[in-house]
């Protein structure tokens, strides 16, 4: 069974109790064929998982689940500052075992000895060094200097040596 390390980028606008926030995430996850379908386990952020019939369906479900987690956090927050704190805690909560599995999977891929499933192999490839994990949570009022060039499309990349 192969584990596939992926990286992704999302940007969302989240409304809460009297605030509007822009949340940009550069994340990590592990896609795994198991139990007759595909599972995707969050690494950054860690407390989230989803599944699908294909790797891309699993990723689409993961993406939707991530957004719904942000919506739950926004609903609980009394202010932007509280939402920012909760979103950053969600992102940074450690899962050392999953991080270790992600690193081992990346090393295995880098050796070239792993047969990569076609739909994964067709993804854009990028070196993790070029895609640091991060989260940015800003109030929309501080995003007034943004331009169209700052738009961030959803992006899924296979972590591999560039």
């Amino acid at each position, binding site marked *: 069974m192969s584990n596939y390390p992926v990286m992704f980028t999302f940007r969302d606008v989240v409304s809460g109790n009297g605030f509007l926030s822009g949340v940009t995430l550069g994340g990590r996850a592990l896609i795994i064929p198991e139990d007759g379908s595909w*599972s995707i386990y969050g690494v950054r952020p860690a*407390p*989230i998982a*989803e*599944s699908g019939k294909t790797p891309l369906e699993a990723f689409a479900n993961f993406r939707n689940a991530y957004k719904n987690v942000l*919506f*739950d956090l926004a*609903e609980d927050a009394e202010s932007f500052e509280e939402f920012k704190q909760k979103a950053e*805690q969600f992102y940074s*909560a450690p899962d050392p075992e999953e991080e270790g599995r992600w690193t081992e999977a990346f090393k295995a891929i880098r050796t070239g000895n792993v047969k990569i499933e076609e739909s994964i192999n067709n993804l854009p490839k990028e070196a993790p060094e070029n895609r640091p994990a991060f989260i940015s949570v800003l109030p929309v009022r501080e995003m007034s200097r943004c331009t169209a060039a700052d738009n961030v499309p959803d992006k899924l990349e296979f972590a591999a040596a560039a």
Partner: protein
Amino acid sequence: MAQASISEVESMLAECAPGSTIKMKTHFRHVYHPNGKVYTALPKYDNMQVLHIRKMARFFGILECAKKHIPSI
């Protein structure tokens, strides 16, 4: 994919992470471990795919204990 019920999850947590609590949110259940960690994406339905329980147990560091209660994870 195998499924498990929320009552099985509650029994497992009582044994493997005593003191943990579960709160229903609009989209998910939040599970609060006494060590401060929060699992934010446990499905809100009565039955759920075991991968969610597997992930939560790994996140809390209780996977081996959890397997004794819900072997399918």
